[in-house]
């Protein structure tokens, strides 16, 4: 659909603000509605919009699938890693109190990191799902 100039230009203008809005939702999950799950989906939807308008090949050039698969696993590792770090510091699994100077700041850091891991996993799973479904007929021919 990229030979339709109206759609192409509006996608070009909207792409960066959508990702910024997704990251805003990610990092303001503590203060208002939002958090990792929602932010991941919004960021993924920006990439999906790009793939829809410019074609799946361009989308894969923008966000290669091997990086996608690495980040897919990295999100879960960050989540588990926070738990293991808190264990190594001498508390229980996923007890954030020990991470900061005071219990409250420790909780704050822990929640921020954990939400980031969730967001990373969800956004990459959604992009991978979309790519797998949209590419299905091409993979079948090979």
């Amino acid at each position: 659909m990229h030979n339709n100039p109206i759609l192409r230009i509006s996608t070009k203008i909207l792409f960066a603000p959508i990702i910024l809005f997704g990251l805003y939702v990610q990092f303001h999950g503590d203060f208002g509605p939002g958090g990792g799950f929602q932010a991941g989906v919004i960021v993924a939807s920006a990439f999906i919009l790009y793939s829809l308008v410019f074609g799946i090949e361009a989308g894969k050039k923008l966000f290669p699938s091997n990086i996608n698969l690495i980040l897919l696993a990295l999100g879960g590792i960050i989540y588990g890693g926070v738990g293991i770090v808190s264990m190594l510091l001498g508390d229980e699994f996923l007890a954030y109190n020990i991470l900061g100077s005071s219990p409250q700041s420790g909780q704050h850091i822990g929640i921020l990191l954990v939400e980031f891991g969730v967001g990373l996993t969800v956004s990459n799973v959604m992009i991978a799902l979309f790519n797998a479904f949209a590419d299905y007929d091409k993979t079948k021919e090979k």
Partner: protein
Amino acid sequence: MKSLILFFILLCLWLLMSGYYSILLISLGIISCAFCVLVANRGKLIDDEGLPIFFIPRLLNYLIWLFKEILKSNLSTAKVIINGKVEPETFTVKASQVTEVAKVTYANSITLTPGTVTTKMHKDVFEVHALNADFGNDIRTNEMDRKVTWLEGKK
């Protein structure tokens, strides 16, 4: 250069949306904006089409005029819907703008005023569908075309 302008626009947007001005959140905002610019740069989205800055000096003037038009055509569309006198017509107009962005702006302005909609774009010829002969005449006088060309400022 364009990346820098995009970065500052995004940063302003972040600060306006955020409402919490602690050091942590502002630094996260700067990182986020940098990430957005990086990704947009990678996708080759930062060019004249993705960031039409040459519109900005005359934008406000144009928007006020556009809103007036939208208001007027909303009123007449409502009249047409209530009366039920629908005589649709299809015709073509020629756009006189130079850049693609300005043509898109013209097409979008036509669509944004209820009663007229751009159905096809082929280079600089638009096919327009109008709800009534009055709406069609409004477009055919080319006033909007001249306004957008003036907004573009390249002629």
